[in-house]
């Protein structure tokens, strides 16, 4: 039983990473119909933000550097997203497939940029001491860094829910998502809403990047490892639905770790993919059905 419980915890933990990444995608992909393949590179730059701060503040201020990097990464990645939106994506609304390809080109450039700035080698991000180690509850080993990420995912999901559900900004976002022309006609400044949404969605990727520094290495290829899984979360969850994204992220995370446990890491991924294809046979619109007309 213990191994299974441990696997469940691993699944929840992996799911919460996916959720952190997918949240940003839920905004940009779900609400704006923009397939941003450079989302993974925003994650990467979020992670490098932590590294830079740690180098600037010095190794004895690790906790500061780490906590400070959460908001700063949000701004850094958000600004990059904003720039991308204003220069390229703006021109491509209504051409979702082209956005996908263009942002992939952007991703290539950003990867090489990271390589040129920070070197091809991975860089070292030191964890704050309070995130090292872990506790064992009912035989489940829970590492502090994983607990932290789960908590962060929860907090950010809650914040996103408040923003989208309760605030004026969120209502505007939903209005634009449902009917761009109508929202524009009824006095909403749609380009401005687009920019803000994109800023937020990309910024969340940066925050996810900060979290990921606690698990693995920080290098130019960091983002590519997660991006496809995160897109699958958004697809399975349903277009632009927070609830769907949460359920899908956890489900995929848990399925992934259980499949890995009973088969092997490689086969696990294949099993998960097959499960997704089968699932979409029954619910092509995702876990949470969307009434808005899908992307063509």
């Amino acid at each position, binding site marked *: 039983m213990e191994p299974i419980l441990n696997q469940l915890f691993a699944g929840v933990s992996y799911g919460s990473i996916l959720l952190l990444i997918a949240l940003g995608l839920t905004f940009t*992909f779900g609400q704006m*119909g923009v*397939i941003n393949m450079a989302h993974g590179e925003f994650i990467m730059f979020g992670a490098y933000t932590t590294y830079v701060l740690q180098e600037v503040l010095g190794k004895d201020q690790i906790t500061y550097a780490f906590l400070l990097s959460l908001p700063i990464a949000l701004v850094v990645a958000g600004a990059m997203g904003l720039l991308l939106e204003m220069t*390229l994506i703006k*021109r*491509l609304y209504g051409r*979702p*497939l*082209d956005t*996908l*390809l*263009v942002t*992939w*080109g*952007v*991703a*290539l*450039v950003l*990867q*090489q940029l990271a390589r*040129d700035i920070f070197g091809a080698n991975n860089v070292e991000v030191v964890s704050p001491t309070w995130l090292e180690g872990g506790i064992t509850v009912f035989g489940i080993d829970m590492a502090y860094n994983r607990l932290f990420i789960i908590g962060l995912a929860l907090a950010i999901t809650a914040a996103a829910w408040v923003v989208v559900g309760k605030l004026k900004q969120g209502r505007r976002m939903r209005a634009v998502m449902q009917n761009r022309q109508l929202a524009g006609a009824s006095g909403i400044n749609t380009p401005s809403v687009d920019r803000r949404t994109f800023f937020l969605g990309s910024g969340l990727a940066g925050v996810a990047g900060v979290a990921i520094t606690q698990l693995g290495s920080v290098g130019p290829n960091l983002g590519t490892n997660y991006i*496809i899984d995160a*897109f*699958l979360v958004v*697809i399975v969850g349903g277009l632009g639905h927070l609830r769907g994204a949460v359920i899908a992220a956890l489900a995929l995370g848990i399925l992934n770790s259980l499949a890995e446990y009973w088969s*092997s*890491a*490689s*086969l696990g*991924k*294949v099993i998960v*993919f097959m499960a*997704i*294809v089968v699932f*979409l*046979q029954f619910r*092509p619109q995702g876990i949470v059905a969307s009434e808005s007309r*899908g*992307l*063509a």
Partner: protein
Amino acid sequence: MTTFVKSFVPSNRSEWSSRATFVAVAILFLFVFPAWLSDSRLDLMASYVTYAIVALGIAIAWGNGGMLVLGQGLFFGLGAYCVGMYLALVEVGGAPNLPQFMTLLGSQETLPALWEPFNNVWFALSAAVIVPVTLATILGTLIFRSRIRGPYFAILTQALAGAFAILLIGNITLINGTNGITTSFSEIFGLSLFEPADQRVLYTIVVIVLGIAFLLSRQMLKSRYGRLLLAVRDAEDRVRFLGYSATKIKVIAFATAAGLAGVGGALFVLVGPKIISPASVGIIPSITMVVWVAVGGRASLAGAIAGAILVNTAEFEISSAAPEYWLYFQGALFIGVVAFAPKGLAGAATWLKEKVTSRGSSSTTSTSKTAEEAA
């Protein structure tokens, strides 16, 4: 006899120019390149030609059918592995013998059942086409029937290619994992893959296969089916409410693209680096294949061919001259073409042509435009 001769005289100007272009390009590939390029460069060109066959399929599915196929590496890989397995068996002298890596990595004493039929060249060659087509038909039916399209379809195909690469890597004792299948010496139909003279014959075969694939694809796009495919791309519901099965139409294009990718893959292991490994089938190579077609002009068959060959040539040259800049270049190329010149090279060619023959009668230019773009 005169009618027979007459049948070679084209009926209109656009037909004239497309035939003349075809003959000119055929001469370029079949006579100029072999005379001009060194053995190794010609062998390399042969591998670009196999890429061009893959690109044709992408132009059909994506450019004309609106299905962004981001997982063509899967079908390319299936075709390539089918023939690769045959070549690996030839190298060790036929069926009961095990390819080298099996004894090195695994503990099999006998050839796995999966490998057994690939001892036959005809089986291997036909499987290289039939397996991708069948898989694409099944997957396509499942995906299109549940109305998964647009970016959803694109990301699913991408994940598919990723999963396939992982599966190959994971099955190391069966299919040699990351290393993939390479041969140091092998032959097919008595043609050695490593003798320059035989390589030239293989090059010619590959070019001719491309020519046939091009003509068949062209025919397909010019038919009513081709129009229907454009119709599905632009207004799928309308097609469905005209009484057609949009699923069927899309599956045929998807399966055709898969088949062409399979053919390309099957030929790919015979020429150029003569290696097939997961590195050639995963997510990144699959997107790269779309880059070729985007650069060439997504809806244009001729553009797809030109794109595949030019992008690969450019990659080879630029990455030699300045490896650190190739990624920047590739990224910029992609951004520039997709965002600002979605018609790619083909669009540029049409524009140029219209500039030159600016006084064509307006009605014929508009009708022939889509047909030309398709060709």
